[in-house]
């Protein structure tokens, strides 16, 4: 048996171990990749439909359209998928797969902004993807607007916000508050802010552009405000032209 206390042995052991473990993990990750990508695709469709109110919500809990039905429902309700690039609007049936994070990092001319037009019970909706920063990591979501720029629903998700605090942005009681808020004040873009102490905990005032913040999640809340305002703002000039 080799002397396991020698420095050279320790280093060789560490190197071999890292190589073996690294290749094992690389193999696992690449062989499971197709299944994971497929799941992520369904999740995006579920999130987009959720934001325009197509879901199976019961009593306070978030319930998406089941995975086996989501593809059919998505093509039923989402009438058009558009891509806005450098002032031009074009159709693209794979627009929902565009990664907004990567696009926001691009130069203004190269940036591709996906936009979805949904139709439910004769009403049309614009569904805008969102991406921003929370306290610890990325937050993202979708917001749906009707033709008067009134929010019809939102969906938020996060990568690593604090469980029980910032992570509650994906709870019904937070997301439902956004419905009915107006993002424009007159013709001016105002956005929606997550506000503390606006004396409106039940969110009765819908025209003030404010929703009640989550206790203990100030920075996540500010992140949501910034995410909505910065992303939706990019779309406003085009929404005015589109006139669904």
């Amino acid at each position, binding site marked *: 048996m080799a002397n396991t206390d020698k420095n050279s042995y320790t280093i060789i052991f560490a190197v071999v171990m890292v190589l073996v473990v690294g290749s094992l*993990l690389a193999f696992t990750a690449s062989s*499971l990749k197709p299944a994971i990508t497929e799941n992520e695709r369904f999740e995006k469709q579920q999130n987009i439909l959720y934001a325009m109110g197509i879901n199976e919500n019961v009593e306070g809990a978030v319930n998406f359209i089941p995975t086996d039905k989501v593809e059919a429902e998505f093509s039923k309700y989402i009438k058009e998928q558009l891509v806005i690039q450098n002032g031009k609007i074009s159709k693209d049936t794979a627009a929902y797969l565009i990664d907004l994070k990567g696009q926001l990092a691009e130069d203004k001319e190269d940036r591709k902004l996906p936009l979805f037009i949904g139709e439910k019970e004769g009403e049309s909706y614009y569904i805008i993807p969102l991406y921003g920063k929370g306290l610890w990591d990325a937050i993202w979501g979708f917001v749906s607007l009707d033709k008067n720029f009134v929010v019809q629903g939102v969906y938020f998700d996060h990568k690593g916000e604090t*469980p029980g605090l910032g992570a509650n942005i994906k709870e019904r009681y937070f997301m439902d508050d956004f419905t009915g808020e107006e993002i424009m004040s007159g013709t001016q873009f105002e956005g929606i802010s997550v506000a503390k102490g606006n004396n409106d905990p039940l969110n009765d005032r819908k025209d003030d552009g404010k929703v009640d913040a989550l206790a203990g999640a100030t920075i996540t809340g500010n992140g949501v405000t910034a995410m909505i305002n910065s992303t939706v703002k990019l779309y406003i000039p085009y929404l005015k032209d589109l006139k669904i």
Partner: protein
Amino acid sequence: MALLSKKDRGLLLDPLADNNPITIQVLGICSALAITAQLKASIVMGLSVVFVLAMGNVVISLMRNIIPSKIRIIVQLVVVAALVIIVDQVLKAFAYELSKTLSVFVGLIITNCIIMGRFEAFALGNKPWRSFLDGIGNAAGYALILIIVGFFRELLGSGTLLGFKVLGDPITKTGLYAIGYENNGFMLLSPMALIVVGIIIWIQRSRNSALIEEN
């Protein structure tokens, strides 16, 4: 169970009751509180820990004579981290929604004290087969408590088991709800998990006074 000697049987069965990692050694409490609001999440978390601990114990035990003692803990961490990432990827591929519910907690299996504890205390000094039994036993003891806690929290908190409405429908007021029963929302919060674990510890120690420590 003629397959196993008396000693091996002890390795497998002791952690289920008289040497349970959660109720006796009070290890792995964090995840027991966090993910037990639903029975399904408890079961999957339990199974994941069974896999990680059994495999990890075997791997560490096989390498026990060649692991350099200076980087022993790092080697253990690499083994458990690799296994956890495999579990995480498999869940993402085949149980995506569940993997979102378990979110960070699957990653936190790495820091579950039961796992490092068994590697260090058992696998480093025992043969692979016995380490395997020890891993299965301890993880099953952990999973058992998780499932008991998850059962009561989901039943009393949401009125469901594995998502099925076993007590009737709270909105249309059928079953138990027809006679005025209400779900206890407090059961869904973590403090109630601690209280349920406390009750299990109490019952266990009142049945077997040998488990009570002398102060």
